[in-house]
């Protein structure tokens, strides 16, 4: 739908009726969920969560490698199921804190903070 304006020479009281799809040409734009590293080695940095599972840890073999001595080699996993992402502690030595509370696992929501030792992330939902 286009609301007419005088500068196009249309009658300002009339409305041209049209199909929105034909005018815009695309559907919703999707972006993946992401983890933003706010504090800790390598900050600031962002990780798009593109795979079904991504592991956070100190090992160079993991997808989200943070070289902090307070982090286990394989510390926590981020598991995607559709639009949802679940954080799971992989039996780490120092645990995972969600918004300041130690958790074993949790579904993540926009703005959640994840603290692992001296490392702080914020979770951003996809859209």
């Amino acid at each position, binding site marked *: 739908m286009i609301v007419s304006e005088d500068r196009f020479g249309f009658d300002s009281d009339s409305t041209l009726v049209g199909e929105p799809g034909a005018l815009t040409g695309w559907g919703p734009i999707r972006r993946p969920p992401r983890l933003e590293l706010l504090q800790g080695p390598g900050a600031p940095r962002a990780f798009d969560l593109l795979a079904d599972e991504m592991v956070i840890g100190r090992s160079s073999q993991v997808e989200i490698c943070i070289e902090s001595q307070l982090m286990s080699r394989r510390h926590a996993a981020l598991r995607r199921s559709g639009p949802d992402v*679940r954080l799971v*502690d992989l039996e780490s030595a120092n645990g995972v804190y*969600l*918004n*300041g*509370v*130690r*958790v*074993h*696992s*949790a*579904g993540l*929501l926009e703005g959640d903070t994840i603290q692992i030792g001296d490392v702080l992330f914020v979770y951003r939902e996809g859209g």
Partner: protein
Amino acid sequence: MPAFVRFWGTRGSIPTPGHQTRRYGGNTSCVELRMDGALLVCDGGTGLRELGLDLRRRMPEGVEAHLFFSHMHWDHIQGFPFFVPAYSPESRLHVYETTPGDDRVRRLLHGQMKSEYFPVSFSELGATIEARYFSNRELWVRGVRVRCFEQPHPGRSFAFSFEHEGKKIVYATDSELDSCVCDPLLREREPEALRRLPADLVRFIEGADLLIADGQYTDAEYPSKRGWGHASAATVVDLAVQAGVRQCAIFHHDPMHSDDVVEEKIQVCRARARTHGSELVVFGAREGVELKL
């Protein structure tokens, strides 16, 4: 062996789906405990439906679950007819009655599935569902000692304590704690002062690694809700401090409370614990969060 606790429903009174309640969740009371290999379920509010779906995935060969109902108000039983394992002949459900010989829990679960309310009758459920009874307010599930404690609530309710290998978890929802504060005028006289609660209640909770407790109201709200059977979150904090609890999950969030209001309530609770000089960890019970103790 560690104990696991997962919140499937944390809302009080009625389900509250929607953007305003997304963070803490809109499903009504249901908490899963796993201790000594036993699956223990506290209450069957609408969160029980989600738990059932997850159990079908985790235990496709059949579920053995122990169901403890604090009481039988709607928000604690409505999930049961939608609990998928109840329909499976491979499942075995143990339903606990707090009073020997009393079949109230089973009778009311049956009643809510009468054809006037629900299309499938209780007798059509495929699972083996059997009643078990507390004896002197205590019983054992495998190596887990379970005790119950009567609470002030219209029609009464029960708290449950689960203990195994030095770990203690207390589930205490739908309790009007403020009605049994030792000095009922203290809250008006000195709102910040520690509200003493009855010794037998404090003993029941004493030393819990985790207390999951009804903290539905703010202090400002409670006076207008007196007699409805729920507690001020501040009084829950005071109980937890007196009982030497390590972590306290404020539970049974008011259906009128948005996530922001719950968050504010939790901040007030944390400040109160600090005021009492306590290291108590206070948080708002949130759907989908799992703890390992």
